[in-house]
């Protein structure tokens, strides 16, 4: 375990200067709220979607640097992606976080700096909270479509 592998400069930059942070009062956005009751992390993600494509992501939460920075990184990683693209990126992100091999051509950009989290099992939930929220949002939209 090397602490430098967890707290990378990129992560701390996103923590201090998060992208896409803050809510919009616009009911065309789907809002998903998730929390981690054991540590108090609390994350809300807003998604604006058109034709199975994420056209905007907002996030707001309280939590540690890993949790909050990860929400920012998630927002820039999944912004503009189709549902199919987003779901496959999410899959690769989870694989990486668990320490498994992942497809570097699918998961690109700042998200790969969370590779170090695999060495810190206690922090996996922090790193994935915002990503899980977006995944839940996508799944909900698709389920709602099926159920009419």
């Amino acid at each position, binding site marked *: 375990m090397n602490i430098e592998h967890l707290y990378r400069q990129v992560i701390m930059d996103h923590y201090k200067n998060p992208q896409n942070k803050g809510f919009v009062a616009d009911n065309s956005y789907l809002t998903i709220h998730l929390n981690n009751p054991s540590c108090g992390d*609390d994350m809300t993600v807003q998604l604006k979607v058109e034709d199975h494509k994420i056209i905007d992501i907002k996030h707001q939460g309280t939590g540690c640097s890993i949790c909050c920075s990860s929400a920012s990184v998630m927002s820039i990683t999944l912004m503009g992606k189709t549902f199919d693209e987003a779901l496959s990126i999410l899959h690769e992100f989870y694989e990486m976080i668990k320490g498994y091999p992942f497809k570097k051509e699918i998961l690109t950009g700042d998200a790969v700096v969370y590779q170090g989290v695999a060495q810190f099992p206690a922090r996996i939930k922090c790193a994935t909270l915002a990503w899980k929220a977006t995944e839940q949002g996508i799944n909900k939209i698709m389920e709602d479509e099926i159920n009419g």
Partner: protein
Amino acid sequence: MIDVDSIRKDFPVYSKQPQIIYLDSAASSLKVKSMIDQVDHYYHTLGVNVHRGAYDLAYVTTKLYEDARKTVANFIHSKEEEIIFTRGTTSSLNMIAGSYRDILKPGDEIITSELEHHSSLLPWMITAQKTGAKLVYIPLTTTGRITVENFLAVLSNHTKVVALTHVSNVLGFLTPIVEITKLAHEKQAIVILDAAQSAPHMKLDVEALGVDYMAFSGHKMFGPSGVGVLFGKEALLNKLEPFEYGGEMVDEVYKDHATFKDAPLRFEAGTPVISGAIGLAAAIRYIESIGFYAMHEHTEALHQYALVKLKAVKGVTIYNQSAENPVITFNIDGIHPHDIATMLDQYHVSVRAGHHCAQLVSKFLGVSSTLRASFHIYNNRADCDTFIESIITAKNFFEGF
């Protein structure tokens, strides 16, 4: 005087993991060898059931189990018949709160506090919801204490139950339970005490405390996990419906009804936690061999030593400087507790980060989470020094970005 080097020889984890700086005893203490040996003895040389068999091994096992009950009874100054072995504090408190779902009525009041661990709060919250009784919170002082004066402000003729923590697991504050119990009894209310945090640190005498029910766990007092105690006054216990039905709690069984034994067996349906009970008794004997006075003197000295050092670190907020229990709950400006805890773990310093199963305390403090360091007899000044040094390193690390 406690000699930590010799104490550590009694805790095998230190020979397996010599690097640990364990400051999370309020969550679970380390485990003492004499307890492990006793549990081992049961499984290696006995391994049979209690109460039932007509053979020698069963007699020996039953004697060990019932002797464990005597040990616990002496430990808290109760009768043997008043000691029920349970799965832990959570189980004990749920049992009592569950029983009162048949007893409480709409308009009755249950007094509790924001200092409660979820295991003391939630069972009564559900009982209130199911019965129409009202949950009433004692207003805390600005520092977060329960006082007799504030208790009096909520005590009324409607009060039927007072369910309180003896020592807060987050803030380490001691509840003035003796006075509260006297006042509650004047209103014919029953008092349930969550002693999970006090049992490992102070002498509990149920006669002096006066409480009607009391719960604590083995694993926080050097004993095994999976065993706890519910103390209840004999006269009250035998009026309660059994919590569970099955073997050994029953008296006579007919096709359409059955009669039940008196406490404690009335509440110990099925095969009990035999290894846990005899393990807990061994842990209690260990505590008694050292004595609460010596334990307190040692842990309180460490507590104060660590407090002084922590206060000297810039940007630290301590929420419980006057705590009676050796526990320090704090935060560091601008750095999330989880980030600090991960950094401390690099130095093998184990602390708790989060809301410590007491979300109302975090809400009271106005924070989403806190760090908690707690001390016990196997800790020494070097542990405190490394703890503080790693806090400073963590602070510098995160402030460097």
